[in-house]
């Protein structure tokens, strides 16, 4: 897959970085902003185009008897 161009603007991405608490150089921010395109593509795919039922359960293992 060619590197997908991120839809998020650099300004909005910088806001995400600030909220994350990460301290990044400009070069690191540039690189992560470019990589964010992959996250957008994969996130869209797992959202299944919004067609999922509201009650669809996640696959999370939880044992209420655990001590």
């Amino acid at each position, binding site marked *: *897959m060619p590197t997908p161009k991120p839809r998020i603007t650099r300004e909005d991405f910088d806001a*995400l970085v600030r909220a994350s*608490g*990460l301290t990044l150089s400009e070069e690191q921010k540039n690189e992560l902003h470019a990589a964010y395109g992959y996250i957008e593509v*994969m996130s869209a*795919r*797992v*959202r299944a185009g919004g067609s999922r039922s509201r009650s669809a359960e*996640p696959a999370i293992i939880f*044992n209420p008897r655990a001590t």
Partner: protein
Amino acid sequence: MTNIPSIAEAGAAIAAGRLSPVALTEACLARIDLHEKRVHSFIRLEHDRALVAARAAEAEIKAGRRRGDLHGIPFAFKDIYETAGIPTTAHSQLLIEHVPTRDATTVTKLAEAGIISFGKLATHEFAIGGPSFDLPFPPPCNPWSIAHFTGGSSSGTGAAVAAGFVLGGTGSDTGGSIRTPSAFCGLSGIKPTYGLVSRAGILPLSFTLDHAGPMAWTVEDCAILLQAMAGHDRADPASANLPIPDYRAELAGGIRDMSIGVIRHFYERDTTVTPEVGAAMEASISVLSRLGASVRDVTLPPLQDWQACCMIIMLAEAYAVHEPWLRTRFNDYGKCFRDRVAPGAFISSADYMAATRHRRELQEKLARVMTDVDLLILPSTPGPAPLTKDVGSYGLFEIPNFTMPFNVAGTPALSLCNGYSADGLPLSLQIVGRPFEDATVLRAGHAHENATPWKERRPQL
């Protein structure tokens, strides 16, 4: 390099008194002395401890107290398995002085089975960041061709077993980290069913995708090792409390009348493989058919769906594990780790939950397909090992791989050698089973391995 026995062969020879654990340990240490400076598979070689342990094993066996097939067998641990009193670094500057006070459950179990620990093996940093040249230790080289990639993240285990430095080792697999180095280094390696082998005491990457398992030269050796590693552990909240079958005994069953599905669209439509991998897959299908299995194509959701699901969950969970250090010591990680894990900071909770809901949908679709077939097959990797210099940080994001679907599903998946490229690099087959039917997967792999000549070759260092 010749005369490197499998675990099964060495175990039988030790039991019969034809092979001394001390002599076997010395032979492996001699190979390490000769070749490790080119292979870089070890982070920490416990030369003297191994000899002491081998002498103790030999005395115990001579006194009639042989523990089983693993007693006296040279072995080593991926350096994310915690070992009491011995540094466990995860191949990272961040843990360079980390000395655990207890063993991982699997370390204890393998010690009780009598393995001779040679020490700690290289890994991608925290089982995801590599190959990297900006870490405290170099990445391992592939014994089949030093310039080629070992695969990862159980890179040191792949290299050390292929080189005959040890006869087996541990790996961990979150998106393919047992199966990919097994494939690139010509080994057999199984990612067991999620919950079968304890993760307690193994440094986490992604809690719901991490699997621990064995890597060795043959499928039979993997069965022997899995026997020692599997079993319920209260220290691991995901551990399954189920009876453990006799994996080695069940190898003998053969595959006559088994039904096998080929996930052809993964490697012919969803992405591509090299012509040699395609030809090796057709040859494997012929072998399995000749052994009495019925083989037909099956259809699953596109490979890209599995990759997206696996990556979103893995990155979100890995970021959660590492967030405190990423906030305070970002530049102490290698660049490859930073490139791969830092994007996890920007995955929303809604996206993470969407991935876990998608995971259930994918699991259910796989389970439906597997009501009609006993096993699934596909390549482990799209080609032989690439050159290490050509492996970048974002390959995991760019190209959907053939291993992640079975981390998402939690099903057992075995990689084994099914041929060689024109350049002499190993090719590989992946065999997948239903949850907790690891024995069936191993049986099919053993049948394939016995019907083909691929394990007769060893890398020439």
